[in-house]
């Protein structure tokens, strides 16, 4: 029995969002009687941080503290329209819609403040701490709370804004087949190092190194969290998970988590991640978002690493010990490739 080390890499060019008849999302922003703001969305936060990021985007655009913004998500009965949380579109599409809505709400807020301070709205600025003051004269100031109260009870205005971000449908050119399915692409490269046991066919992860270019990271900790966790979902798809191990024959399908395998805490390996920020021209504050590409490059990188380790090319996922062993046997033994 020998354990063979191998290294493989994969690069991806990842389109943000999709192109099925256009890809819109809407957002509504309004001030509450307390002078705090609510963002209404139908988008769903699955744990990836959509609420945090849209909250940041709204606060930054309005010029108010992030604590003053509440994000109300995921009620498609009462919220504005959203295509959904998929295709890695949340930060980019929903973020842009929130930004547009917050910009409109800010306009009303500044007009209301101008009326209270008896100045021109163009001469006002926000301090990001919940106050609006005359440029160059910070003592001529009013809190956003007082502006909201004045708008609601005195001026009869709603401090609110509507936002939509729509990437129109791109039709395929019948002559050339050309189309433009996305406006914005993220990129990644991942190197996986594995150890393949030529007696059992087992593949163990040794380490991963990756670089992700995903526009501006609006919340670097959340980006890192998604990249770390998503890579393990990729490993899981590469080596473990399948509902139908002998597809299309449904035999031996897993019935529970004992048979439906996923990596456990004992299977993880070090993963060094570099995040490269190249702001996207049409992203909210330059963001593209990590999304699904956290997992995508892992699968081909692991398959390439297995080839590098024992010389077998397996193109059917997941790469189970059985497939590795059969391939090694067919090949007449492990054939380690040149170390890369």
């Amino acid at each position: 029995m020998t354990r063979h080390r191998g290294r493989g890499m994969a690069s991806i060019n990842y389109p943000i969002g999709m192109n099925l008849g256009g890809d819109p999302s809407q957002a509504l922003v309004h001030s509450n009687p307390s002078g705090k703001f609510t963002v209404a969305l139908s988008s769903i936060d699955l744990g990836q941080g959509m609420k945090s990021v849209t909250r940041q985007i709204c606060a930054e655009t309005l010029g108010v503290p992030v604590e003053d913004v509440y994000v109300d998500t995921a009620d498609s009965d009462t919220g504005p329209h959203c295509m959904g949380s998929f295709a890695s579109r949340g930060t980019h599409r929903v973020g842009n819609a929130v930004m547009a809505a917050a910009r409109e709400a800010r306009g009303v807020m500044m007009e209301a403040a101008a009326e209270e301070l008896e100045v021109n709205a163009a001469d006002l600025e926000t301090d990001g701490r919940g106050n609006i003051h005359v440029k160059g004269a910070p003592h001529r100031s009013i809190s956003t709370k007082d502006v909201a109260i004045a708008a609601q009870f005195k001026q009869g205005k709603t401090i609110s804004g509507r936002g939509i971000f729509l990437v129109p449908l791109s039709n395929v050119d019948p002559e050339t087949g050309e189309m433009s399915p996305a406006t914005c692409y993220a990129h990644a490269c991942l190197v996986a190092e594995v150890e393949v046991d030529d007696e059992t066919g087992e593949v163990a992860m040794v380490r991963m190194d990756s670089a992700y270019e995903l526009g501006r990271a609006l919340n670097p900790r959340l980006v890192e969290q998604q990249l770390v966790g998503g890579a393990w979902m990729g490993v899981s798809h590469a080596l473990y998970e399948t509902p139908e191990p002998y597809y299309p024959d449904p035999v031996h399908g897993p019935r529970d988590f004992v048979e439906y395998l996923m990596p456990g805490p004992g299977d993880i390996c070090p993963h060094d991640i570099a995040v490269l920020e190249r702001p996207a021209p049409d992203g909210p504050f330059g963001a593209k978002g990590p999304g699904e590409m956290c997992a995508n490059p892992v699968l081909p990188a692991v398959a390439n690493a297995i080839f590098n380790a024992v010389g077998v090319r397996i193109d059917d996922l997941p790469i189970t010990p059985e497939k590795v062993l059969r391939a090694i046997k067919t090949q007449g033994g492990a054939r380690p490739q040149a170390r890369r």
Partner: protein
Amino acid sequence: MSKIPLQFRHNGRDVAIFVDGGTNLLVALRELIGDMTPKFGCGQGGCGTCSVLIDGELHLSCLTLAETVAGRAVETLDGMKQGPNLHPLQRAFADHFAAQCGYCTPGMLMAAKALLDRNPAPSRAEVVEAISGNICRCTGYEPIIDAILAASGSRASA
């Protein structure tokens, strides 16, 4: 089927309920006591998100017959925070971004508490072993392991 009277301590408080024979502890906690912190994941003992402590020991509440906890002390995540303050483990989970969707988190926290209660300064390997009955889809485990190590007395990093 006649109901069985059942008394036990739930997070330091005495509770008395009537259960059907064969009711598992998870159902008793969620549906009869209203403590929703232990989650229903697989119902087969395969995922760990229903984990609770019974007399300080880690158990899968979905595989525990409710009547077997009579007179014993059951601890759930609902009893973890101390008044308005988060338990150090909860704080560490937040600081280390050890939750995304959060569905495994109650079980992870209970498994971690069971470990630190008996071994305040575990090694990384001991932490890995302690949570190996708990499945997490989102985090890749690394942040969870880091959080438990940070909350413990140990400063083990490898």
